[in-house]
């Protein structure tokens, strides 16, 4: 049975629908990311789970019980805010202890748990520091310790790493993942950073304009994007216009001079999506001319002008000779490396 369940949840502000028809089952101990551009409704959904907003329609259940009927203060969820929202007038230890105080945990046990929580996030010895005397990364850790010390049923992370610099963010990602795996708290992360979502989560919920575009493992969403939005949002992709040719038997998928047996169940105009790293230079296929060639250490990046429009190709730097700028090439890929969708509006 699902641990946390969102059932057709919707949120409207006035006439504007911010989240629509959001259904998701989260298993116990799972790490889920809500991924999407700003304004896609991911934070609104998180706030509805937290209880800061009430859903207009739909139900949110935790272990089968209706969560929307529970006051936010009684939900027992741990939340890390984008701004951390630490209490500036309290020390790190007092911040972490606050949730335990509210639960009337006895003083001795409280001190022990606060110490353990701060040690877990690598802040042993910082107990008496005030938040304003700590770095952004340290504040972030205090916020995490404060959310985890109450042993929350679900941990909600609202863009927790977006205020950190790139290097620190990577470190925190690794650490966050380790901590989550160790204590096994069911976690929901809201982010607009696809790398963050992919490196941390068990499953990603890709959202756009208040709707779910796709739910899947990082690999699924990357390799089998369910929509043009998902393939564009997660990493770089090439979209080629193609058609299904029914005049030949068996039917063929044609994109420029590239052709392959057509996948079943599709007809007419289609969009063929191929990741840049899955395209190779061969003897047959889409004819193209290399416009620029950029060396990036472990790989080469080619920008090409193909008969189906601009294309990007990434090749591993494996020591082989690579085509030069201005060369005419043929682009090809294996049929299993592409995803084909019916072209809308054609």
């Amino acid at each position, binding site marked *: 049975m699902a641990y946390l369940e969102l059932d057709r949840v919707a949120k409207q502000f006035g006439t504007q629908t911010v989240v629509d028809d959001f259904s998701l089952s989260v298993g116990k101990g799972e790490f889920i990311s809500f991924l999407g551009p700003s304004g896609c409704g991911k934070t609104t959904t998180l706030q509805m789970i937290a209880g800061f907003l009430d859903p207009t329609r739909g139900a949110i259940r935790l272990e089968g019980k209706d969560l929307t009927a529970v006051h936010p203060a009684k939900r027992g969820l741990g939340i890390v805010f984008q701004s951390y*929202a630490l*209490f500036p007038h309290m020390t790190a230890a007092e911040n972490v202890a606050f*949730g335990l105080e509210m639960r009337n945990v006895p003083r001795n046990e409280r001190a022990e748990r606060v110490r353990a929580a701060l040690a877990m996030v690598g802040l042993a010895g910082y107990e008496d520091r005030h938040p304003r005397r700590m770095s952004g990364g340290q504040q972030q850790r205090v916020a995490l310790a404060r959310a985890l010390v109450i042993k929350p049923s679900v941990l909600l992370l609202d863009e927790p790493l977006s205020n950190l610099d790139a290097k620190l963010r990577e470190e925190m990602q690794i650490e966050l993942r380790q901590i989550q795996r160790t204590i096994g708290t069911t976690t929901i992360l809201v982010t607009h950073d696809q790398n963050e979502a992919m490196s941390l989560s068990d499953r990603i919920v890709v959202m756009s304009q208040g709707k779910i575009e796709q739910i899947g493992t990082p690999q699924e969403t990357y390799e089998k994007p369910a929509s043009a939005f998902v393939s564009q949002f997660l990493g770089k992709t090439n979209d080629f216009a193609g058609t299904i040719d029914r005049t030949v038997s068996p039917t063929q998928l044609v994109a420029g001079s590239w052709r392959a047996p057509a996948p079943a169940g599709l007809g007419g105009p289609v969009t063929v999506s191929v990741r840049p790293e899955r395209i190779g230079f061969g003897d047959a296929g889409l004819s193209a001319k290399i416009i620029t060639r950029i060396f990036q250490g472990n790989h080469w990046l080619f920008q090409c002008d193909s008969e189906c429009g601009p294309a990007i190709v990434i090749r591993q730097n494996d020591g082989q000779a690579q085509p030069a700028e201005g060369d005419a090439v043929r682009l090809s890929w294996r049929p299993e490396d592409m995803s084909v969708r019916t072209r809308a509006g054609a």
Partner: protein
Amino acid sequence: MSAMAEERSARAPWALTAPALMLFVGVLLIPLAMTVMLSFHDWGQYKGIEPVFILKNWHEIATDPYYAEMFWRTFRIAILTTLLTAVLGAPEAYILNRMSGRWKSFFLLVILGPLLISVVARTLGWALLFGGNNGLVNKLLMSLGAIRSPIPFMFTETGMVVALAHVMMPFMVLSVWAALQRLDPQIENAAMSLGAGPATIIRRIIMPQIMPGVLSGAIIVFSLSASAFATPAIIGGRRLKVAATLAYDEFLNTLNWPLGAAVATLLLAALVLIVVGSNALIERRYAEVFR
């Protein structure tokens, strides 16, 4: 060449601040120094002011209980006014801050409105409402039979505190408002998610963070109330004097300028001590919040 440029750039700050500095010295420091000097001069009914150095005025203020009472009253009124504005102003600012857009700007205008009206007009308004038998509110309450005799307001310390608190309220509200702006907008949600109820959030999370605002507002209100002239002059008149109205009377009615100067100097010195002292205390106590 470079030495000249250096010399010129070293002089530049002085040259640039000179006009303001001259104004500051001319209209503040010199009159102040002259007032202090004046307080050591002698005065007689028939001889007028004699520019000699004596401690007569200071001795009189130190020994005559009349002056002690006057100063106690001044500071008592200032403290009560400060407390009243804090107790009413802090929640007012908090409620205002939680209002949504249009209401917020409307009520902010309502709160700041009094600043646009002369203190004299506002204080006379209180006098019209509560002034003796003819006060509007007193008349109404008496005709309704709620009270037998008019609520004493004019010439009372209560009246003075109420009228002063009304005048000073915007300073407290603005000061607390500024402190509220520094609050993390998610801080209440954070406390709530950890299990805190509304009362706990206000007591444990909001109050400690806006306390510096309340206290700096209190310093402003206290120093303005203790040196206020118009409101005490209208409500208290000649019967209930405070330090500022006393100095005024010595200067303009008794014409004993040296004694008036001594009263004014003492008021200034006491205020500076209190304000600087409490400011230092506050900054030390709330170092973490101020950072």
